């Protein structure tokens, strides 16, 4: 299996504040990988490192086998980059920006861009700076489709979008990446949107990767367990994650089966009753893994 993105031992600090230490991950060709994490866990930092706009304190990332600091023009032409907030050259109008980018990419698909923009209530000479964030997102997406890159790096693609535009963005993107077998590396703070898109999921905690698993594995195996108990506390371990008392009952999250969870709970002599198990959405699973705070 081809590796498109490879990050080895990435360590980065902002001043004295550690962001990661020895972060390792890979993205295989054709995979859609979502990077999830609370605010401040370094999602955008990873995107910046990957695209060569931040030099980590240690470690190396490679895209298409090339070090991120010295990506060749050929490698860059194969990477579609969406910046946080759908930032584009706002002084252009719709026609001008298409004309500008088209000359850089030999495989430019002009019709893909205009096809997407047909649905927007904008004129071809409307400046991007006068558009709403939703409209700008469609321009940015249209440009990515026209570029037709092998790898898409999308930084917080949901940012600033209302539910309609978010859904539109996700649907178009999903259709495109599925049909064209693209590799995608994306972040978003709206996890429901990610759930519709991603094959694999990296959940970042402060300073490390908490989990890197296929989304289907998380959705199938990770469960919330509710139960009653008179125990004052339960120890945290690999089986019991984020165990806490909610009102009169307890909640814990686990990849283990109900039987294993019950065994773990009673191990220290606690009494446990009315143990129930809930399937989770990706957002609930994220909360279960990282905690609410």
């Amino acid at each position, binding site marked *: 299996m081809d590796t498109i993105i490879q990050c080895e031992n990435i360590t980065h600090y902002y001043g004295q504040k550690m962001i990661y230490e020895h972060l390792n991950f890979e993205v295989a060709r054709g995979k859609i990988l979502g990077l999830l994490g609370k605010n401040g866990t370094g999602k955008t930092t990873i995107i910046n490192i990957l*695209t060569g706009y931040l030099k980590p304190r240690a470690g190396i990332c490679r895209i298409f086998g090339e070090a991120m600091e010295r990506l060749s023009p050929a490698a860059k032409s194969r990477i579609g980059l969406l910046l946080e907030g759908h930032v584009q050259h706002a002084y252009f109008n719709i026609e001008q920006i298409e*004309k500008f980018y088209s000359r*850089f990419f030999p495989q430019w698909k002009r019709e893909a861009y205009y096809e997407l923009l047909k649905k927007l209530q904008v004129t071809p000479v409307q400046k991007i700076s006068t558009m709403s964030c939703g409209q700008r997102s469609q321009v940015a997406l249209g440009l990515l489709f026209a570029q037709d890159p092998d790898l898409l790096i999308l930084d917080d693609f949901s940012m600033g979008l209302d539910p309609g535009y978010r859904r539109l963005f996700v649907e178009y993107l999903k259709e495109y990446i599925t049909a064209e077998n693209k590799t995608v590396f994306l972040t978003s703070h709206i996890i429901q949107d990610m759930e519709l898109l991603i094959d694999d999921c990296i959940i970042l905690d402060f300073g490390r990767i908490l989990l890197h698993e296929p989304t289907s594995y998380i959705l199938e195996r990770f469960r919330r367990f509710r139960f009653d108990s008179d125990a004052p506390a339960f120890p945290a371990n690999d089986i019991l994650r984020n165990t806490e008392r909610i009102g009169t009952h307890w909640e814990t999250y686990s990849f283990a089966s109900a039987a294993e969870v019950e065994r773990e709970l009673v191990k220290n002599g606690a009494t446990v009753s009315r143990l129930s198990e809930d399937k989770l959405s990706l957002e609930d699973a994220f909360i279960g893994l990282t905690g609410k705070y």
Partner: protein
Amino acid sequence: MYTSLFYKEWIKARKLLLLLLVVFAAAVAYTLLTTIKQFHANPVAFWEFIVENNSIRTGYMRYLPLGAGILLAIVQLTPEMHNRRLKLTLHLPLDESKILCSMSGFGLALLSGLFILSGTALLLGLRIYFCPEIVYSDFIASLPWWMGGFTAYLLTVWICLEPVWKQRIFNAIPALCCISLFYTKALPGAYVPLLPWLTVLMTAGFFFPFYSAIRFKHGVQ
């Protein structure tokens, strides 16, 4: 690809260019009209001034190249630094140093066109009334101002590309000192021995923006 990069710079700078053309044309016209007026009002005093100072008092244009250079750099670079759009520009499939050279090159070419056009118009206008030696002497005396315009452009690009605000202020201090060398008040022609050094300073200015770009690439905060 280069055509496309120039197109982007053109879209950003075209309105300013129009404004600069009008301002420079007005300044040239004002300089010529004032000179002609002085010439006819009191020819003896006027010629006496020229003979004594070896200059025709075209000082109305003095700070225009400086203003043009600074404004053009701001108009080109501010949109790139807003929301860090420079990332999009540097992500284009072209060598990053070539992208930066093209952006600066475009600005320098625009300024050259503007300066050559207005300078030529001024000199041709003066040539109607004055002999070539006097016009040439006036041209040499005003040369540092035009060179100062190019240097101000390059140093403003350097400051604008700098990713950290505090460092921008630190950069502005040597930039101001450097630019002031081109505008020190002196007798006309006193600058001539300094012209090679000012040329070196102006040429060195071309490389400064690369340092800011490297800092931007390294994500310095």
